[in-house]
């Protein structure tokens, strides 16, 4: 793999993400409670948990939308607390709402993102052509995004979030509301991305998707209740499916 990314050195760590004791409190409520984990380059890391378990809050701290109350983290080797500017250049982000502008065309959306991330016009043009061809959207470049089917919109949003070739891409429940075939296709795109060395951190509450991750962490009440490769996690807990494990962790009182 040739590196066309920002060539700043990763400072003192080979990890794409490194979090130690990361904590976020809202008043007396602790949304994320002292979590420690790392993500390797090229790894697909899943954040699993029920709604309100703290996975989105944890992600927001890593991408600089929230300040940690305690603990520290580095993303792409840069400190979340002091180097958020540098982090922003090296990450991509896609939320469940896709972050595309409905009243702009496919091309205008791509140009906007490219411009925001400081790509030159030539770079934008070249990457745009490649991207549209890969998605089979070349004929739609002048179409308003609002008239695209949901699945295409989602794939476009993901590709656009990768336009500046970030070292890490954050996906916040990226597959909400789409059909199983489209979800399957989306995960293929995630694998293709990881294969180029990009780390992928994805939050989800679909347990079948968790099986696709290289490693995952299950969050319960702001803490990491289990972490590791899906098979290891299941074996350690002595359960046959993630479903079983998830229910046991989420509702310990009713565990068998």
């Amino acid at each position, binding site marked *: 793999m040739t590196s066309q990314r920002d060539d700043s050195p990763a400072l003192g760590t080979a990890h794409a993400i490194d979090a130690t004791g990361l904590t976020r409190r809202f008043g007396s409520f602790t949304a994320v409670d002292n979590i420690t984990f790392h993500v390797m380059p090229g790894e697909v890391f899943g954040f699993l948990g029920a709604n309100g378990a703290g996975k989105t809050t944890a992600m927001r701290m890593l991408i600089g*939308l929230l300040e940690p109350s305690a603990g520290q983290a580095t993303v792409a080797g840069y400190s979340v607390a002091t180097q958020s500017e540098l982090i922003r250049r090296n990450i991509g982000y896609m939320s469940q709402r896709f972050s595309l502008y409905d009243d702009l065309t496919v091309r205008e959306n791509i140009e906007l993102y490219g411009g925001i991330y400081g790509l030159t016009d030539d770079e934008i043009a070249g990457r745009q052509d490649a991207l549209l061809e890969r998605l089979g959207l070349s004929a739609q470049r002048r179409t308003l995004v609002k008239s695209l089917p949901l699945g295409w919109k989602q794939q476009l949003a993901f590709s656009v979030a990768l336009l500046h070739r970030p070292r890490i891409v954050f996906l916040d429940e990226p597959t909400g509301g789409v059909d199983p075939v489209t979800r399957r296709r989306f995960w293929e795109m995630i694998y293709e991305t990881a294969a180029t060395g990009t780390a992928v951190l994805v939050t989800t509450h679909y347990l079948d998707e968790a099986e696709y991750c290289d490693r995952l962490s299950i969050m319960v009440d702001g803490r990491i209740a289990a972490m590791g490769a899906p098979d290891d996690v299941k074996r350690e807990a002595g359960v046959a499916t993630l479903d079983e494990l998830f229910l046991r962790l989420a509702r310990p009182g009713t565990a068998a």
Partner: protein
Amino acid sequence: MSAPSAFRGFLVKEVRHILRDWQTLLVLMGMPLAQVLLFGYAVRSDVRNINLAIVEPQPDAATASLRARFEGSSGTYRFVGTFANVAQLESRFKDGTVRQAVVLPMRFAERLDRGERVQVQVITDGADPNSGGIMESDALAVLRRWDAARGGARPALRIDVAARMRFNPTLESVNLFVPGLIAFVLTIVSAMMTAITIVREKELGTMEMLLVSPLRPRQVVIGKVAPYVLLGFLDVVIVLTAAQLVFHVPFRGSVTLLLAESVLFIVTSLSMGIVISTNASSQRVAMMAAIAMTMLPTLLLSGFIFPIAALPWPLQALSNVVPARWFIVIVRGIMLKGAGFADLWHETLILAGITAFLLTVGVRRLAVRLG
């Protein structure tokens, strides 16, 4: 700091949003024109063509002379007729065929000749206090002029007005409306549209994407509001041009100064929009908040419609923090009195102070909210 091209790309996107939503754009550009015409003609027609009746139980030379005086005020009065007593007017007042009546006493000429003080009554349809106040003062002016022209040694008429209105009529013409109208239009374009456009990004989830990008929150805010400075400026030009061409509103002061003050007020308004956007969770909330916090004060507490001096003191005190109040004083000063910056620096300073405060609070809150 992100590249300048990043900001330029963002600005292009904002302009595209605005141009693509051409219906909203049409409203924003057409509204000021419609309002100038509405306010201008509404105010004019009310004080013109007043259906006037004269009650003269005993016609003589003096009543004829006074009647001629009213009839001679071309355009202001439409003379309905003379009546023997007030009772005959009751139903005509009710259906609007008579809106004002001048009631003269018996032996009018004879008593005036003897130098007696004579009582004349003016009855005015006060259902609409604005036009009522204007009609009342107009009629009094005609009576006084007639009395003075009669050449008596001293004013002989003691004028007694039947419908007393506490309302202070300052709205004699469209001239006074134009400055308030500019403030009102700018409040809508700058404050409301700014609040809505920022909250829309929050609602759509695209704001997060922008804040995760290398763009700084400050750049996002500036990029979002900059096009509305231009739109607001165009609206000022539209209002002034229409007022000038259609209503020949006087323009005695410096155009440059007026436009510069307008830009200041545009920035004031969009600062209010930014402050509102930090508290609003949806576009609908943003719109309601903009109406309650900016449009209503601009309409009611700025001197636009109700003179500040006529407000009870708590509202007078409150009006000091309404930016439109100061802006309207400035615009009226420049347009109607030909005032220069030397006369208006005080108001300008206050407006600039309010703007600096709002802008600081707004941008800081937005950055905290988002960042």
